């Protein structure tokens, strides 16, 4: 009875809330051009950032601080997960080994998946990719290893250090911008050195975007793998 009442109340509530949200949304019609700053980006993205992918330019250049924050959020999650699941001694929870099909298949797939991850973050300024999907792809490679091999573990210490170094690398790139161009996260490669100005649309362009995306890719890859690692282990009591 209580449950039924609760369900009905919940449904009524969400309907009212939904109606309210819909009223608000009716004021910003779908499909209409609502851009203001967006137009500016589209008009200037190539010449200002060297990126063909405007989203990438927004992510790394115009709203680089958001992305630095985003990287930080993921870092927090990986650190937090590690902190919460930390035990003196832990090992994999797996009970059943993977079949040869899976293990061999994984062996074949891992290099390819990794390469593809790298491809994605390197081409972030040209295609819809970027550091995050690239990193996630790389992490998938490690996930597959965990799936296939019950004893597999990433090299934690190295990964943690790489994670930290990549993060520092990102901030350092920002600080170099501060030192060279006078602004934190300033894209000195494109705007000061003007590298790749005649290369727009090709790989060697986009200023520091490929650098940052590489850093992010490595960082995200190691972080997500770390989270996976933590989630797949349990405490060993002695």
């Amino acid at each position, binding site marked *: 009875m209580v449950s039924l009442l609760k369900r009905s109340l919940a449904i009524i509530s969400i309907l009212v*809330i939904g109606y*309210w949200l819909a009223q608000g949304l009716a004021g910003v019609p779908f499909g209409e051009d609502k851009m203001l700053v967006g137009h500016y980006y589209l008009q200037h993205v190539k010449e200002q950032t060297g990126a063909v992918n405007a989203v990438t330019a927004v992510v790394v250049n115009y709203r680089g601080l958001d992305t630095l924050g985003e990287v930080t959020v993921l870092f927090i999650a990986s650190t937090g997960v590690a902190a919460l699941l930390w035990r003196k001694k832990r090992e994999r929870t797996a009970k059943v080994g993977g079949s040869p099909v899976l293990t061999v298949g994984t062996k074949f797939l891992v290099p390819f998946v990794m390469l593809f991850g790298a491809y994605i973050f390197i081409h972030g300024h040209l295609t819809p990719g970027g550091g995050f999907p690239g990193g996630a792809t790389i992490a998938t490679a490690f996930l597959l290893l965990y799936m296939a091999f019950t004893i597999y573990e990433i090299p934690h210490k190295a990964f943690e250090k790489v994670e930290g170094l990549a993060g520092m690398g990102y901030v350092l790139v920002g600080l170099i911008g501060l030192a060279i161009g006078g602004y934190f996260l300033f894209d000195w490669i494109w705007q000061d050195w003007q590298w790749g100005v005649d290369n727009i649309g090709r790989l060697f362009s986009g200023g520091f975007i490929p650098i940052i995306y590489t850093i992010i890719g490595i960082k995200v890859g190691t972080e997500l793998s770390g989270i996976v690692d933590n989630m797949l282990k349990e405490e060993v009591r002695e």
Partner: protein
Amino acid sequence: MNELLIIIFAPLLGGVLAWALNVRGIRELLGVAGAAVPLAYLVKLYSELDASGQLSHSIDFAGFTFSFSLTHLTWVFAMIAGVVGLASTIAMVSTSRDGYEWLFALMSLTGAYGVFLSFDLLGFFIFWELMTVGSFMMVLKYSRSAGLKYFVLSVVGAFAMFLAIAKIYALSGSFAFPDVANAVYYAMGRGDLALVFGLFLVAFGVKAGMFPLHVWAPDAYSETNQSYTAMFSGVLSKTGVYGFILIYMLIGYRLMVEFGAFRSAPKFGYIIAFLGGLTIIVGGLLAALQEDIRKLFAYSSISQIGYILVAFGVGTSLSIEAGIYHAISHALFKGLFFLIVATIIYRTGKTTFADMGGLAEKMPFTFAMAFVAILSLAGIPPMAGFVSKWLIFEAVISQNLPILGGMVFFGSAIGFVYLIRFTYAVWFGQRPTDLDDTKDAPLPLAVAMAILAIPNIVFGIAPGLVVKELNKIFGGEIVTSPTLWELNLGFGRYNGLLILVWLIVGLLIAAVIYFLGAPVRKVPVTDTYQSGNPVTMEYNLTIRRNFFLPLKEALAFWLRISFDKLYRDIGAWVEDFAEVMRNYVYNGNVQSYAWYLALILLILAMWGV
């Protein structure tokens, strides 16, 4: 530094230093100095004040302007603080044991000075709070329950005052008394006016110990250093009294205009007066029923404050002047009483009548002081207490307010009732053997008592001294005083000197009779006689035990109506409610919490669409 600020802050400074250094000897010296300096400055400023009529000072602090002003009115109240404060601190030399007490006692004194001298509502409030904190800490050290009760009621009072102040400030944009009075007179609405009056009534009523907000006082007055209680009851309660004068100064005109008069008293004043009358009766009756001398004087103090409230409530210049006079004499005799209690406790360690008796012989000086105090409180000429009570009585009667008159009269009668018991049970009769080697008051206490006893007598014999000052407050001859000894109300006269002479004559005759009469025979304690029945402890109606038990039984019905209990019940109810509420609201289930979020979203949805 400005002298007014020195007056206000000298005690606090002394107290902080005494507490920080905390070396016996130096501590006391600093403490007493802290109380003496303001008094000295007050005396020094007297002539200046007389010349200019008002000494002012203001400072900008914390983004506010704080004004201080010494007027004839505030000088009188400050002098009460000065004299009683000094006496009280001197007495503390004997009774206090640590820096803690010096700090907070003197902090409360600073608060009292600040309250009297502030000429703006914010400063008034701040010093009020400071005073409350100091006195609260003094009580807390002795009793948790008394402290809590005092604390809660004080906080309620203070917050009521604050709300009133905020209301006024929102209207006037200033805290300064003149601006406030102006703004209230010209701009305050009827509802707000009534609200502000009610809030002030609560705020000042709590501090003054007005019925039914008095419940904290008996416990607080008795559960602290009794030397300090002299200041507590003598000075601190006067800030409440002073507050009632402020009501007149700040919102009185407007109240009069808005709500008119009942009979000849302003309607709002009648509320004050009536509550004052109830305070007299309740305080007096309860005083009579106490077995503990500290409690007795605590209730008695409440009762006496009632007189002042009645006087203020009547609202004529005469009655207010009478009220102020009684404030002075109350401070003097009640301060004295508490010092006497302090001395008795200091020497005997006893507090109940049952454990006392026959002390007059062992403590003659203290007894003499008690004699002065008793006469003054009972309103027997030629003591200050008589003059002020007489003035009040005349003021009330002259306005044709018979009910109030009756209340005042009843108060005097009941005063006799409990004073007789105190007189006999403590000082005369059988002395328990463990009190046989009781010594008289130590020097500091003796000095302190003397400081209060002398003006008790002087202001009784020479009321003109006081009246002259009080008339200055009103800028006219409210009470005519042809000579120092005489008062003339037009429809009544008083001559202190004449009465003194008659009294001395009378005493001489009594002495002759005493020495010519039968010799006194000493009997053992057990040699009592009571209607042929054996005396049981349960129904032992000796003067030292349950003397007024029959009265208590007669009043049983009324005594069941206890505001103390009511407040406790409210407190308990609030606590239970709080417990139920928090267990219900914060029930630990995250899903309920999610529902709270949904609820707010719902409200926003309803609100917005």
